[in-house]
Structures are given as structure tokens and as C-alpha cells.
């Protein structure tokens, strides 16, 4: 699969001397949903704003569909739709006007049917004549999404699009995002809801302190870094782990009443069967057992904390 966005040696130092991005190299594949995760202040918005033309890079290049974002800004910006993190709207305009305005600004001919479709999909059709200042926060967020979609972009940046959107609408929104991806739009999103990245993304990038510390297929990431745990509730408490079980990564918990076995999902011959057999041989009986798998959130926290 070819890249639609190529980022080479990109860095940004803000006027005050703050280095928001180190040297970023990143390829975004055509037609994927790419989730950018990182703690507050990691540089996610800075990266997005550079690609969209709002922030000027200090060093490095970015191409979108083969066009340089500085030299051929018209070509690249026409391809990109941006939903900014901040809720910035013109308070005194109505929904229809503001969404149509964006389409004009991006040089596209008026298309009321398309605007209607976008507004309906985002459940904004009933509010099309409302002044934006009279909308709730979640509605304003959706107005920003409608604006970004109004010019039919090929690449869509969603900078924390679901902040402040209620659960039901959020699901509708993700459905719409999947449909967009299926229609060939490349989507780059940032989110603090890691379940969302887990649910939505094809690939995940983790950024911390202005450096990309990891880019991986989501499935691969979960497989590689996802830890599994088997918790056994023992019939009789154990004082110590018997020596014949030393080969397994076991810990005692709950005052000896629980035995926790940690194994990597990639361990292959996971050895659960072996463990259970050996437990039996050692005369340890268990009442119950359950397994847990680390979520992307755990992986993420591990990753970001490993960085000094």
C-alpha cells in the first residue's frame, strides 16, 4: 500500500524556544485509519497543524499525495479536511451558512445536496438554521466535522473529535468515520479515549515529548505487547510458590489465596495446560480461574512511562 502522507525529518521549535517536535519521520498509508496517541503536550496538535498549514515547520518536509505542503500548498490543502481540537466557531452564523462557507473557501462549487447529506449524517439537519451560539458543545463539535467534510477531502484529520460528544452520537460518529474510510478517505485521529483507538484504528502511532516512539499495526501491537494473565483462586492458601513450579512466571496474590500466571500472548505454547497439570501433580487444587488481557491503555501507559 502506498503512502498518502510522508513526513521526513520534521521538527518544530516554537518562538519561545519550546521544542514541540523532534525529528519526526512518519508515513501514513492511503485509506487507513491512523490513531495518534500521546499524553497532553506530546505534540499531536502541532504535527497536525503543520500538515494543514496552520503552523510553520522549523525543519523537514511533508508531502501529501506527492505534493509538498509548502510549495504546492493549494494542492495539498484542497485534499485535507481538519477538525480542530478547540471548539472554534463563528457564534453569530447559522449552521448551514458556516458549512457552505467552508466549501466555498476550499474552492468547490456550491452543492446543497451534499451539504444536506453531511448535515443529516451528523444529526444536524434539524438545527441547520440555528445560530451556532445556541448549540450545545457536542453539536458545535459536529458542526466542525461537517465543515471539514463539506469540501469532500481525501484526507481527514480529527483532533480529538469525540471530546464532549455523548456515547450514542459518538458511536454514530465512528460509524460515519468507518464509512468514510471505506469510501477511500484516509483518516488520522488523535484521541484520549484509548478504547476508541483500539476499536477504530488500523494502525497506531505513539508520540511522546515530540518523538514518535512507536508505529505499529494495531493487531500486531496488541499481539506483541499485550500481556495475558491467568488468575487461579486456590482452595487452600499457599505460603510460597512450590519449587516444582519455579519454571513458570508466577506470583502470589490475595494473601496466598490467588496465584497469578503472566504469559505473553505471543508465547505460543502458552503452557496453561502444562501449568494446570503441574499444579495437580503438586497437589494444589483451585476453585476458579479467569484470564485478563492488557488493553491498549495499559500498553500505552507502559510505553510512555518507559521514556525517561
Amino acid at each position, binding site marked *: 500500500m502506498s503512502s498518502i502522507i510522508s513526513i521526513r525529518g520534521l521538527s518544530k521549535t516554537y518562538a519561545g524556544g519550546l521544542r514541540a517536535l523532534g525529528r519526526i519521520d512518519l508515513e501514513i498509508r492511503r485509506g487507513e485509519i491512523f490513531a495518534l496517541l500521546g499524553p497532553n503536550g506530546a505534540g499531536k496538535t502541532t504535527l497536525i497543524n503543520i500538515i494543514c498549514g496552520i503552523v510553520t515547520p522549523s525543519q523537514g518536509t511533508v508531502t501529501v499525495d506527492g505534493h509538498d505542503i509548502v510549495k504546492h500548498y493549494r494542492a495539498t490543502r484542497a485534499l485535507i479536511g481538519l477538525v480542530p481540537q478547540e471548539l*472554534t466557531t463563528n457564534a453569530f452564523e447559522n449552521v448551514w451558512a458556516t458549512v457552505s462557507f467552508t466549501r466555498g473557501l476550499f474552492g468547490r*462549487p456550491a452543492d446543497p445536496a451534499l451539504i444536506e447529506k453531511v448535515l443529516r449524517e451528523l444529526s444536524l439537519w434539524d438545527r441547520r438554521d440555528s445560530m451556532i451560539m445556541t448549540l450545545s458543545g457536542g453539536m458545535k463539535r459536529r458542526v466542525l466535522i461537517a465543515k471539514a467534510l463539506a469540501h469532500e477531502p481525501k484526507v481527514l484529520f480529527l483532533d480529538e473529535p469525540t471530546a464532549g460528544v455523548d456515547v450514542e452520537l459518538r458511536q454514530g460518529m465512528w460509524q460515519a468515520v468507518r464509512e468514510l474510510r471505506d469510501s477511500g478517505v484516509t483518516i488520522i485521529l488523535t484521541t484520549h479515549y484509548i478504547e476508541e483507538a483500539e476499536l477504530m484504528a488500523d494502525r497506531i502511532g505513539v508520540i511522546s515529548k515530540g518523538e514518535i516512539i512507536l508505529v505499529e499495526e494495531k493487531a500486531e501491537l496488541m499481539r506483541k505487547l499485550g500481556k495475558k494473565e491467568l488468575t487461579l483462586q486456590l482452595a487452600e492458601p499457599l505460603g510460597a510458590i512450590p519449587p516444582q513450579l519455579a519454571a513458570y512466571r508466577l506470583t502470589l496474590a490475595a494473601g496466598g489465596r490467588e496465584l497469578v500466571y503472566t504469559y505473553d500472548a505471543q508465547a505460543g505454547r502458552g503452557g496453561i495446560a502444562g501449568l494446570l497439570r503441574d499444579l495437580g501433580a503438586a497437589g494444589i487444587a483451585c476453585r476458579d480461574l479467569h484470564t485478563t488481557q492488557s488493553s491498549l491503555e495499559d500498553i500505552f501507559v507502559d510505553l510512555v512511562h518507559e521514556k525517561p
Partner: protein
Amino acid sequence: MNLRAIGAIYAFELARTRRTLVQSIVAPVLSTSLYFVVFGAAIGTRITEIEGVSYGAFIVPGLVMLTLLTQSVTNASFGIYFPRFTGTIYEILSAPVSAFEIVVGYVGAAATKSIILGLIILATAALFVPLRIAHPAWMLAFLVLTAVTFSLFGFVLGLWADGFEQLQFVPLLIITPLTFLGGTFYSVSVLPPLWQTVTLFNPVVYLVSGFRWSFYEIADVRVGVSLAMTGLFLLACLAAVWWVFKTGYRLKT
């Protein structure tokens, strides 16, 4: 050239005016009428004529200029300052538009609005005093040139300003005094020689003088000089705008 973008910005800015139609038109018309009552009627009975033109008629070009200058500066500066203030500027910056197109959209709309206002003031004035326009084409040319120049100036002001105080400060403390001291209500020739020389450093003198010439063919400075000075100021504003966009000053971080 992204003509649709220019159209979108232009239409958006004029829609903003439409929403505030009453205060955008009624206020200047009212204040102009007040000037006529005070200067035209009260003082005008004492000062009968200036170079063969009745005092009431004499001040009309200056009054139109006063409105044109303040309105151009205020409209254009608010037009660009507001999206910077609310953050909606992100959309303009991320759109496939050039600096030139942005300027044409914002400055064009601001100039359009102040030209319309200037014409309304002129019509209002015609109700009070008999008007004569010797050179209508020149009159319009000065009107448009001044509106565009000062809208550009306002645009730069709107980019520079860090708060609403600064936006109001410049029209109130710079444009208005310069206009009052620029021969709006008197002929520069009535001043003592020293003040006549000082006045020549006031750019508004050239605008008012040239504009008044297009009405009554009387002028404080030669028309050619007026035109040249206005053109020079236009170039200065263009250079400032060009520099702003080249460096991204106050627009991009």
C-alpha cells in the same frame, strides 16, 4: 486563483454587515446629520463662503472622508481581528487560498461597505445643502482609492492588534484627529504659515483636498499631488500586508 474562496470571504464579511445593518448605517448617518446641524447651520451662518462655496457644501467632502476613513479602518481591522480572536482563523489558514486572495476578500468587503456608507452620507448631505460634483469620475476614483487604502491599513491594524482596546485606539486617537486637523472643516489656507507647513505632513490633507477638488475644483494642494500621496500610502499599506504574509507575522506560529 481561488475565486470561490474570495467570493466566500467577501460574502461572509458582507453578511456580517447585514446582521448589524442598523448600527452600521444609522449611526454614521445620524452623526453626519449632527455635523450639518452644528457646523453647517450654526457656524455656517457666520462663515458664509469659502472660495465661493457655501460653508455647508464646503464641509461635505471632508465629512464623507471622515466616515470613509474611520469605517474602512474599523471594518477591515475587526474583520480580520475577530477570527484571530475566536480562533476561526484556522480555517482560512488551512484552506487552499493565497495571501492575496485573503486580502482581496477581507479588504474588498470592508472597502465595499465604507464606499456604500460614503455614498449614503453624500445622499444625506444632499438633503441639507445643494451639492455640485464637478468631476464625478474623479470623485468616485478618490472614494474607491481611499476606501481600499484605509481598509488595507485597517487589515494590518487588525493583524497587529493584541486586544480590542488597540483596535479602537487607532481610529479614535489617530484617524479622527488627523481628519479633523486635515482641512475637513476649513481650508488649510486660513491657517498661519507655520501650521500650513505642519499640516502638509498629515496624509488626510491630501485625501480631503483631492476629494474636495472633484466636487468644487478648489483644493489646498494640487490634485496631482493628492493623487500621488494617496497612491504612495496605498503602496505603503500593500508593502505592509505583503510583509505580514511573507513572514506569517501574527498569523502563524
